[in-house]
């Protein structure tokens, strides 16, 4: 390793808060709803469904507030197209939200009966015992795209208005109160001028705005920063790159791996899950506090596929989809001190409800949406959507299994900040003591503050059969973003060659390239994974329907 290091934080532009938190009168042409969920993922949709059910049941009993309108805004062209997860899903909130349905009615693929964890070296895979936190008996392999589409149908059936293709670009505020959002205009040309099918941004006024934007939610970040809401540790993230393969050789179990091809100072691992006898999901997840400037997660996933553990399944198969997404990994100590305020609540991944040791977030996201629905329902009954009134939401979460589970594993991910082996030892002790070891919070820096050391990248030639270049991968994400829209990425004024190289490896979608020491940006390639927002140029939403179009990720 070279002595020279780069710290990404230094050159990261600040959050453009002036654009994200807007005061002033809402436009006359605004749309009014009672409750708006920003983000049509598991959190927003489960919240919408739960709220609509509470209202319906209340109305049958003759309770206030009677009729209310519930909207869900989604930036993807249609529901699920920006949703990506592993995923092995805990069905708990499904049972609670749909007590009238059978387990077989839920949008899952296969129950987990067999699972195995391996420690990989370059040429070998050693099976190791499955830690209790990672056991998945009773859980299901599923595609989050399918879950989200299914939830969307349920939401519309019960009268929730789902608006896909409309990203929220800014919070509308009055005093300290969130009064709605403003969508993003579409039909702009590269210079930002309206084109022939220009559609201006629209204000949506809501009595309660629920921010369920997913990982690294932009408006959630803006709200927390604007209201000076801190957390014990900064939120940290991992980036997952995932592929969906049609395989000739059926996969009969859930696989997780640790070790190769990651360097010892990086935290992460891979997974392979069977969805159908001949359809498998495969991915690699790496904490974004990795130290190697030239570490490239997409490329590592390509190399992983050539490992003898995976290659036999993939050979003669076909890559059908590719995608990437960040995961909030900070856990309990990265929870914002409050996840509610005047007219606003923050749900799911945007609030950091992900348990890293069990690799799960979907059921926490849904559950948080359902708790928010309960709190909002009561607030509407009282006709009081103030911070005090919505504090009920935080109470419900804090008393629930969301907080309990994440408290138990609060120091596990931080333990790995000094590398894999010491981390694994500490994690084992934590498991044995039920989270009581080491007692104190392990302090963390944000990912962008971790220094990066150049190691030099090894050239990698994809073969187009098992391994693919980033440009080809982006094609497989279904990304058909118009090439002529304005850039949505806020890049620092001067980007030294060092950092351009770092960005080019960090971004899995070839948005950044280093050409002759200069940074070249290809915004349309972006699949909204948000890694750039964590470590580099800031991400802002583009016109609706841009980005990936995942089908079964």
């Amino acid at each position, binding site marked *: 390793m070279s002595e020279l290091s780069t710290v990404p934080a230094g050159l990261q532009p600040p959050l453009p808060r002036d654009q994200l938190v807007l005061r002033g009168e809402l436009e006359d042409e605004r749309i009014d709803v009672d409750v708006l969920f920003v983000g049509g993922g598991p959190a927003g949709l489960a919240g919408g469904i739960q709220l609509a059910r509470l209202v319906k049941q209340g109305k049958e009993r003759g309770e206030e507030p009677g009729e209310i309108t519930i909207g869900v805004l989604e930036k993807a062209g249609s529901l699920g197209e920006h949703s990506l997860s592993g995923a092995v899903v805990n069905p708990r909130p499904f049972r609670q939200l749909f007590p009238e349905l059978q387990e077989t009615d839920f949008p899952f693929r296969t129950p987990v009966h067999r699972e195995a964890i391996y420690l990989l070296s370059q040429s070998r895979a050693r099976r190791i015992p499955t830690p209790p936190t990672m056991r998945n008996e009773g859980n299901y392999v599923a595609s989050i795209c399918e879950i989200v589409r299914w939830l969307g149908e349920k939401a519309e059936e019960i009268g929730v208005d789902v608006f896909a293709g409309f990203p929220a670009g800014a919070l509308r505020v009055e005093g300290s109160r969130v009064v709605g959002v403003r969508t993003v205009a579409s039909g702009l040309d590269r210079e930002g001028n309206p084109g022939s099918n220009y559609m201006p941004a629209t204000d949506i006024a809501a009595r309660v705005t629920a921010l369920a934007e997913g990982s690294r939610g932009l408006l959630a970040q803006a709200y927390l920063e604007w209201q000076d809401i801190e957390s014990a540790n900064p939120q940290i993230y991992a980036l997952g790159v995932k592929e969906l393969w049609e395989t000739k050789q059926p996969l009969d179990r859930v696989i997780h791996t640790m070790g190769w091809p990651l360097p010892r100072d990086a935290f992460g691992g891979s997974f392979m899950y069977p969805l159908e006898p001949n359809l498998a999901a495969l991915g690699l997840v790496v904490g974004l506090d990795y130290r190697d400037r030239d570490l490239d997660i997409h490329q590592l996933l390509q190399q992983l596929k050539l490992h003898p553990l995976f290659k036999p399944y993939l050979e003669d198969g076909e890559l059908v989809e590719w995608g990437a997404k960040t995961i909030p990994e900070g856990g309990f100590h990265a929870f914002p001190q409050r996840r509610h305020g005047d007219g606003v609540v923050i749900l799911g991944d945007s609030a950091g409800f992900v348990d890293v040791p069990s690799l799960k977030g979907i059921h926490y996201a849904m559950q948080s949406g359902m708790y928010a629905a309960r709190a909002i329902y009561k607030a509407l009954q009282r006709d009081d959507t103030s911070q005090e009134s919505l504090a009920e939401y935080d109470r419900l979460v804090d008393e629930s299994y969301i907080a309990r589970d994440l408290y138990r594993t609060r120091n596990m991910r931080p333990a790995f900040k000094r590398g894999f082996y010491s981390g694994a030892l500490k994690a084992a002790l934590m498991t044995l003591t039920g989270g009581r070891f080491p007692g104190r919070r392990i302090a963390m820096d944000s990912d962008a503050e971790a220094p990066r050391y150049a190691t030099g990248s090894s050239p990698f030639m994809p073969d*187009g059969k098992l391994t693919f*270049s980033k*440009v*080809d991968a982006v*094609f497989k994400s279904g990304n*058909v973003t*118009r*090439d002529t829209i304005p850039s949505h990425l806020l890049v620092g004024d001067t980007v030294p060659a060092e950092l351009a190289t770092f960005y080019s490896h960090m971004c899995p979608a070839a948005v950044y390239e280093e050409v002759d020491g200069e940074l070249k940006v*290809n915004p*349309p390639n972006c699949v909204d994974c948000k890694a750039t927002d964590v470590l580099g140029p800031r991400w802002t939403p583009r016109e609706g329907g841009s980005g990936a179009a995942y089908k079964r990720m």
Partner: protein
Amino acid sequence: MAGVLVVLEQRSGTLKSVSHEVLGAARTLADELGVEVHALAIGPAGLKVDGLGEYGADKVLCCRSDELELYQASRYAGLASGLADANGYQIVMLATTALGKDLGPRIAAKLGAPIAGDLTHISGNDGLVVMRPVFAGKATSTLKITSTPCVLSVRPNAFATGCVARDGIVEDVSPGDSGAGAQAVTIAVKEPEKAVLDVAEASIVVSGGRGLKEAEHFQLVEELASALGGAVGASRAVVDAGWRPHSEQVGQTGKTVSPNLYIAIGISGAIQHLAGMRTSKVIVAINRDQDAPIFKVADYGIVGDLFAVVPRLTEEIKKVRGG
């Protein structure tokens, strides 16, 4: 026995070569079915219909009137369906051209007949079975036609011309009532002003990529395209770099092209580019890197320095075209 009626196409009194292809397809089918091929030519008074026997027509029905010089949809449809009705043709065939796409369905509707268009394969050996591309060429549908009469429209460039010559006796057909009072009349055909040939429409496309190194070198691509009478295309990389306008971009987020000849110069061949041009009939790749993915879809490739290869190619093309 009157079996197949082929509706021919003309422009300014001269039959189009695509009509010879339809005759070729009709002849093969008619031989399988053991029936005759009759051709229907509709056009101006000076319409030339000699020698159609050589393309397989047993008889040529010729309907000449200056009112019929331009394509008059309802009159053309009335004439063709009237003859099909009167003479009991089992099959009416035409080409899937702008005219055929409009006329075929009208004839089918008048005859109460099924229609299958854009056919790439026809067989009469075991019932009437046809093949046609569907889903933008991503799949091929094989259909069995179960009722007659029927209308078949064949894809240009998919069937060969030429066969054993037939008599091709010409018989005049009355143009019928004049077009006065028709609900729709074609009043003019505008020839395009000398405009830039659109990459999506051109039958030959020459595209350049990052291998050209700088915008000025695109002149090499332009010169080759002009020698071939083709259009200029560009990869996304060079469009993003601002070397070329977006209207020239070939690929998934640009235009999808399927010319007869596609020449890729200095284009490595990312999947998203291939998605926009892989249905081209013949693909030529010129690239320095012999491992470039473009060679996997190319029919012909030259590995080498494009700055040496392309000028030579342009020169040779000029010789071929000039001579």
